[in-house]
């Protein structure tokens, strides 16, 4: 455990019954965690469900918490697993729909939930060119980039969160960065100013 990780200390306090410690952790991580989930699964409803699932899991298992790693690693590892389950369920749903369609029962178009036109339009309203480029990355590269940006985790910690070797995590991040740079370059050449600014 990193002795400088105050968040792990907060989690220990919450484990021992201090609700204020949880409130502090929640205030610190709710925005990055929600952004990570939203931009990873690209579906606002699914992101909200997963967000609740991650925190509920943390609350339910708090008694067993032991600070073996940085708290962000612990929290985003839960989030990673929840997202993996989501993508697996989504794939199964698509497969089931495909089978029904082959039987002559056209129930739904064979499109992932997060890629349905109405969902994409809803999400596209809020996203910039950069976020669109992030959304277009392959799933593993997108996750590596989002983990780095939202948590500041090192490559080694990203590897731990995503259960892959360090070299794999580094490779995913390298490809993600290169693709994003390439996708943004033509636009930056025409418009060097920030795409959007928010107060």
């Amino acid at each position: 455990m990193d002795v400088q990780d105050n968040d792990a200390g907060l989690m220990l306090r919450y484990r021992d019954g201090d609700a204020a410690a949880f409130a502090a952790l929640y205030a610190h991580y709710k925005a990055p965690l929600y952004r990570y989930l939203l931009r990873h699964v690209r579906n606002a409803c699914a992101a909200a469900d997963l967000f609740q699932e991650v925190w509920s899991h943390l609350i339910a298992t708090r008694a067993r918490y032991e600070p073996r790693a940085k708290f962000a690693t612990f929290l985003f590892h839960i989030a990673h697993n929840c997202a993996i389950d989501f993508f697996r369920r989504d794939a199964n749903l698509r497969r089931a729909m495909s089978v029904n369609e082959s039987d002559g029962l056209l129930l739904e178009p064979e499109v992932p939930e997060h890629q349905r036109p109405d969902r994409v339009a809803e999400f596209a309203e809020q996203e910039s060119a950069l976020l669109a480029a992030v959304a277009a990355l392959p799933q593993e590269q997108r996750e590596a980039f989002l983990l780095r940006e939202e948590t500041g985790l090192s490559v080694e910690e990203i590897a731990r969160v995503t259960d892959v070797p360090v070299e794999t995590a580094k490779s995913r991040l390298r490809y993600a960065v290169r693709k994003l740079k390439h996708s943004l370059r033509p636009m930056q050449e025409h418009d060097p100013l920030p795409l959007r600014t928010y107060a």
Partner: protein
Amino acid sequence: MPDERAPDELDEYLRGDSALSRQYRRENSPLPPHALDRALLEAAHATTLRSKSPFKSQSLAPLAFAASVFLSLAMVLALVFGPQAKRPDDKPRVVQVRMFKSEPPRAAPASPRERNPTAWLGYIESLRRSGRDHEAELEMRRFRSAYPDYIIAHNE
């Protein structure tokens, strides 16, 4: 599959001050719905309240375990070595129950003659004299039962 052509691209990015990171941080920052905030904070608070109850399951768990082990051991010992335990040399025992503490109750004299020992003995004697020895013997048994301490004179 590290790309050897651009080794510095990732290093520059990992330093944290790349144009890409700066641009990403300028993006909007969506937040979860407020209803989720409330629900999760209340859930977290509720779990801490439950754990603060006087009967903390966590702290009582070792005690409960020790108590169950102790009780189980006590039951086993009681079955093996207790007073109800069956010993190998045990044999069925016949218990004799005495209905009377000393002597059976005496037969109460039924007739006026029998209430008078002398008269009863005289009647027995008359039976013997008339040759009714069997009846005399039965009457004598009844007499003895009614008056066990009565001393019979030889002339009676």
